[in-house]
């Protein structure tokens, strides 16, 4: 994570020094900010997660090739919290599936600690928008699942399950079934299940999109706290720019189909942040301005060509 973003005062973005600030560290020119200096020089091999020239195309029902992702390059450092935003259909969820190893890119490579990823692995655990939990298992058994698959001994599984359930404040619900929980509690179980597998990287696919505003605020706080406590690397996909700024060290903006990295914005606001912080709103406003043109393009595509803007391969959300 960006070294001490926590104790730096509250201008946005935070310039490393006044010289750089005078050189024009605005949000758009944010690559000159403090965080940017740290991540800019990182090569795909040296990063925790490195995406090198990732492209993905697939055949639509009509038989035409559709380019979903186009030469994506992205480096994520250990402990960093990166948010990916973009309009529906930009392939941001698909990108997460590629990192998780659930799909293979058409070209390019996903690197983890410099080594190519060739399938799902317990070092990269995904949290889905909904329905990702197993309804035939209790909360405790859900949290235990990843460890069970990895062959962790039963005693340790139980201990870790209890620990992570307490971490998300669900210690009392170990024996409940998923359908007995509220939407917010379910996502906390999903978080505990992912954390319990002790992955290096958490991949979160619009995990809070289906929740009401109050629950989401609460979960933002909890996620920020847990990220602080566990130091995990998080890649968080959302269509909500304010959420991205509220949570991330960096916001990556993808274009509408084909998905390309349009811009990256370091976010050096002090933590803990709140969704309604004026600085969060201001930063989000600047990103939104750039996002808006992409949203318009996606809407135009939807109206003019009758193209369904939200296409993902093989049942991705």
């Amino acid at each position: 994570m960006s070294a001490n973003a926590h104790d730096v005062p509250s201008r946005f973005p935070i310039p490393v020094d006044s010289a750089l600030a005078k050189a024009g560290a605005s949000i758009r020119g944010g690559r000159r900010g403090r965080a940017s200096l740290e991540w800019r020089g990182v090569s795909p091999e040296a990063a925790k997660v490195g995406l090198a020239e990732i492209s993905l195309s697939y055949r639509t029902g009509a038989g035409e090739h559709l380019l979903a992702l186009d030469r994506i390059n992205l480096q994520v450092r250990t402990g960093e919290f990166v948010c990916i935003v973009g309009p529906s259909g930009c392939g941001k969820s698909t990108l997460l599936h590629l990192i998780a190893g659930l799909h293979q890119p058409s070209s390019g490579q996903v690197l983890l600690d410099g080594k190519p990823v060739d399938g799902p692995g317990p070092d990269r655990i995904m949290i889905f928008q909904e329905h990702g939990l197993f309804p035939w298992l209790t909360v405790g058994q859900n949290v235990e699942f990843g460890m069970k698959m990895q062959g962790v001994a039963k005693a340790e599984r139980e201990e870790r399950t209890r620990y992570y359930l307490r971490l998300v404040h669900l210690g009392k619900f170990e024996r409940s079934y998923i359908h007995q929980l509220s939407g917010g509690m379910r996502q906390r179980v999903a978080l505990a299940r992912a954390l319990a597998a002790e992955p290096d990287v958490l991949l979160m696919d619009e995990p809070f999109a289906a929740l009401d505003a109050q629950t989401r605020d609460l979960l933002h706080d909890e996620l920020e706290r847990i990220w602080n406590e566990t130091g995990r690397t998080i890649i968080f996909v959302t269509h909500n720019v304010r959420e991205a700024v509220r949570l991330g060290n960096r916001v990556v903006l993808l274009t509408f189909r084909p998905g390309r990295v349009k811009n990256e914005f370091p976010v050096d606001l002090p933590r803990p942040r709140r969704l309604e912080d004026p600085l969060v709103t201001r930063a989000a406003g600047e990103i939104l301005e750039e996002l808006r043109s992409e949203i318009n393009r996606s809407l135009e595509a939807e109206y003019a060509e009758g193209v369904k803007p939200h296409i993902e391969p093989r049942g991705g959300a």
Partner: protein
Amino acid sequence: MKRAIRYLIFYGGLFTVWVVLAQLKIWPPYLFPTPWGVAEALYGGFADHTYFIAIRVSMGRVLVGYGISVLLGMVLGLGVASNKFLEETMGGLLVSLQSLPSICWWPLALLWFGLSQNAILFVVVMGSLLSVTLAMEDGRKQMPKIFGMAGRNLGARGFKLFWYVLLPASLPFIVTGLKQGWAFAWRSLISAEMLYLSLGLGQVLMIGRDLNDMSAVIAVMLLIIAIGYVVDGVVFRGMERHLHNKWGLTPAS
């Protein structure tokens, strides 16, 4: 309570009609048995252990035959559901075979297995395999894909993925098919047993016919219905209730 009263009225009425018709003596008792004749046959059958033995033999066979069907059907169904070639070719064959009554396999079964227990088992398997296969195929397709993705993501693969994720995830979608498969297995078994000296319920029923003892025939028919009903009510309803409790679905029936 209200339901119990409705049941009482319906079955009480049915029973009364039977008693009245029997009392009127329109037909001789060997054509139209009386309720007390049937009760006597039931008592006699259990008293000399004929029915106990028959039930044990028939249940043993249906368990083995149905068990084979479920195992084979799951493998076949998964194969058909996940392989486009199999789906296009075997999928159609399976559906068309379903219109064939399983007892049609009896002549072939006799040739292949001889006049033996195995011939009966073969007919039972052929009777229930198709519905289990089709149910499994359907269940695998209906099951939300996210379970498979989440399972793979958490490190499940191969047999573990099937056993810990795909199978439990598709159970609510295949339980109806499993139930239907059981009903077909039970029917096929009785049909096959009626054709061969087999000790099972089917043979006991045919003995009743040979002795012109219609009370015994009705008694065995009642037994066959009762066993089918109890297995359905206890095993499959129980399974459905269990699934609904876990998944939080409202009962389908």
